[in-house]
């Protein structure tokens, strides 16, 4: 068993950075905030690597199977006997892998930001938020308890919110951060209810116990969960599907993806960290974490795969039409996560069947490298150009050679060109799909072609196409060592990560999975990828009007894709028209007029009656006497005749 203390330090150091910089940063660490944050994270990363080393090569493996270790667990909140939120650390291959990914990418982003964010007024705050995010993400990946994951899930959401809204004085950033938070929050609702369902049937919130109870065929919990049904669907399926909704929201799966492109309003390094490499894959991670339970429900897995594949295709199409480079990357992220998702969907549990699982995780890993690289590269470009639009770019390869090369590596990686990282992981995914569901396989194949196309469209538009016209000061394009170093490191990762024998470490059941390399199988995807690349080259390498022509010839479809298939408008309609006007406004109206009106009416009725009856007090003493006598007679009659 590893020493829990230093593992706990991995997430706690970034938290310390958050607290330190958040409270005292503005006054005391105005300039040193970046260094402090980066240093703390560096320690954290080192510890994560050490942990990974220890886990994978030392104590993690028992009898050839990677164990699920819980070196630390603390009872945080006891709901009822058996049902408690325990904050703990769960070490298994995927969480350890994620620890490494998160700390590493985060470190890169920290370093990168030292230069990128230099001179910002809220520099300490920025690092504080980065620290918060890293802490939350690390907490999420090591969660030992489903509720713990939910907790960090929410924290991740809020740090994302804070970072997207970093430029708080821009209305678009404000709108974007709100949108991101609310949309993911909506999805979290599903997650929450899913947790409630699963915890109710399993009687626990602990991941290990939950998985064990809901997967071992003879357990009574599983039987009840399968037997209980609502609307004809078993409770188990409901539970996992609801949990998946949460995952889909965070991972920007269709139709909950609308927040992701807008989230690009945040600083670019943030996009690299949160909206490319780490947070958005939380959904995938969640499904992977609960994969044994998912695999008990075939309909749930189907939903996962179809949502994944449709998001992948859909996002790829949109990415082909966007002109904001960060948005292109955002859609590409969505598309790639779609890959990971459907890979899980087509996977089985255990042994050879678990290929999809391994592939998905592998892709998650490689994607983190090259997508972070892409974003950081794009950041460098934006830093130079001060614009996100393709039309302001072109011919930048001369001005920023390093950025150019690293960007190219990343593009090749994502396009699935061997021997870059993306090639290996994507191959595995396609293979898994091919083995399980040919329909999905074909779509995936097309999508990977599209991926190559839009990535190189981006690449050519930035670095080739028209010549850059330097204005004034723009002599050297590169952003200094702090920006270069992460690019280079990540480029190494993107180039080489594919050679890691991933299946040995990460598999659906902990035992090593030997992935074979099928040469014949790779022909089709690689060919399609190259085709995409060359099409992009033909269209975009030099400035010409072919793209416009194609756009015109596709007319309606192009327009629809350009407008992201009108999802935003649809959501606008739902929120503004339906929620606000048809629910919110009536609720407020009812409160003001009906409920409140009732109270006021009671008051005014009393007043009115009081006004009406004043005639009785007429001031005429004889009338008083008449009422007196009438009272006497009435009482006499009442009590003698009526009320005996």
């Amino acid at each position, binding site marked *: 068993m590893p020493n829990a203390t230093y593992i706990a330090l991995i997430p706690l150091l970034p938290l310390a950075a958050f607290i330190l910089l958040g409270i005292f940063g503005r006054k005391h660490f105005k300039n040193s905030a970046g260094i402090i944050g980066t240093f703390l994270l560096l320690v954290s990363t080192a510890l994560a690597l050490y942990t990974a080393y220890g886990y994978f090569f030392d104590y993690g493996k028992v009898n050839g199977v990677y164990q699920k270790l819980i070196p630390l667990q603390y009872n945080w909140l006891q709901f009822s006997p058996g049902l408690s939120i325990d904050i703990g650390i769960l070490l298994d291959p995927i969480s350890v892998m994620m620890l490494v990914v998160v700390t590493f990418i985060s470190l890169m982003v920290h370093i990168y930001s030292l230069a990128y964010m230099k001179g910002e007024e809220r520099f300490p705050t920025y690092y504080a938020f980065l620290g918060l995010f890293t802490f939350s993400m690390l907490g999420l990946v090591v969660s030992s308890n489903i509720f713990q994951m939910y907790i960090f899930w929410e924290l991740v959401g809020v740090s994302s919110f804070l970072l997207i809204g970093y430029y708080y004085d821009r209305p678009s950033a404000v709108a974007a951060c709100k949108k991101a938070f609310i949309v993911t929050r909506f999805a979290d609702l599903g997650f929450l209810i899913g947790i409630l369902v699963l915890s109710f049937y399993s009687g626990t919130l602990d991941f290990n116990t939950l998985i064990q109870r809901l997967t071992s065929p003879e357990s009574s919990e599983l039987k009840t969960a399968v037997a209980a049904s609502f609307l004809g669907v078993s409770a188990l399926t409901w539970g996992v599907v609801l949990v998946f909704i949460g995952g889909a929201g965070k991972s920007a799966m269709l139709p909950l993806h609308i927040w992701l492109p807008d989230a690009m309003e945040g600083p670019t390094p943030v996009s690299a960290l949160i909206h490319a490499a780490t947070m958005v894959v939380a959904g995938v991670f969640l499904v992977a974490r609960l994969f044994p339970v998912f695999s008990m429900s075939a309909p749930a897995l189907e939903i996962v795969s179809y949502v994944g594949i449709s998001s992948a295709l859909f996002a790829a199409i949109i990415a082909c039409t966007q002109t904001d480079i960060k948005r292109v990357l955002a859609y590409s992220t969505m598309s790639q996560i779609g890959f990971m998702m459907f890979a899980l969907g087509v996977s089985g549990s255990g042994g050879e069947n678990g290929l999809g699982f391994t592939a998905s995780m592998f892709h998650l890993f490689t994607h983190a490298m090259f997508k972070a690289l892409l974003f950081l590269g794009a950041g460098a470009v934006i830093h130079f150009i001060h614009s996100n639009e393709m039309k302001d770019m072109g011919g930048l390869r001369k001005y920023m050679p390093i950025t150019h090369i690293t960007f190219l590596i990343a593009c090749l990686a994502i396009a699935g060109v061997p021997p870059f990282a993306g090639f290996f992981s994507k191959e595995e995914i396609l293979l898994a799909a091919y083995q399980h569901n040919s329909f999905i396989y074909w779509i995936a194949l097309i999508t990977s072609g599209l991926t190559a196309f839009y990535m190189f469209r981006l690449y050519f538009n930035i670095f080739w196409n028209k010549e850059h016209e330097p204005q004034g000061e723009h002599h050297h394009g590169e952003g200094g060592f702090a920006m270069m170093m992460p690019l280079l490191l990540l480029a190494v990762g993107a180039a080489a990560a594919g050679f890691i024998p991933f299946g040995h470490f990460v598999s659906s059941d902990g035992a090593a999975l030997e992935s074979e390399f099928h040469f014949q199988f790779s022909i089709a995807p690689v060919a399609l990828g190259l085709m995409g690349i060359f099409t992009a080259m033909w269209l975009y390498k030099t400035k010409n009007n072919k793209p416009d022509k194609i756009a015109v010839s596709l007319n309606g479809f192009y327009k629809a894709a350009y407008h992201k298939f009108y999802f935003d408008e649809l959501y606008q309609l739902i929120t503004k028209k339906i929620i606000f006007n048809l629910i919110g406004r009536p609720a407020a109206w009812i409160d003001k007029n009906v409920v409140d009106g009732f109270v006021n009416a009671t008051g005014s009725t009393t007043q009115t009656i009081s006004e009406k009856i004043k005639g009785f*007090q007429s*001031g005429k003493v*004889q009338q008083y*006497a*008449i009422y007196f*006598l009438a009272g006497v007679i009435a009482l006499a009659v009442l009590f003698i005749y009526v009320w005996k």
Partner: protein
Amino acid sequence: MMEPGLYHLLFISGALFFIGVFGFFTRRNLVTMLMSIELILNSVNLNFIAFNKYLWPDKMDGLFFAIFIIAIAAAEAAVAIAIIINLYRSHGSIDVESAEELKN
């Protein structure tokens, strides 16, 4: 000549009572209203006497009561007249309708 029975007396007293009440309700002159009250009180006196004589001849309570009522009526009338005089001073009239300022 027929000996008057209890019911005759009660009838008369009842009639007196209602005459008094009617007078009290309808007359505008304060003194007349006071007189109507006297009628009511006298009807009560009649009642007492009649009950005493016919029903409870051995208990003299009724008789005493009647005597006291007469005394009290006098006292009441004295104060009432004093008040009416004062009212006349301030309002210039002893019409009950002249004093209807306090109302509602």
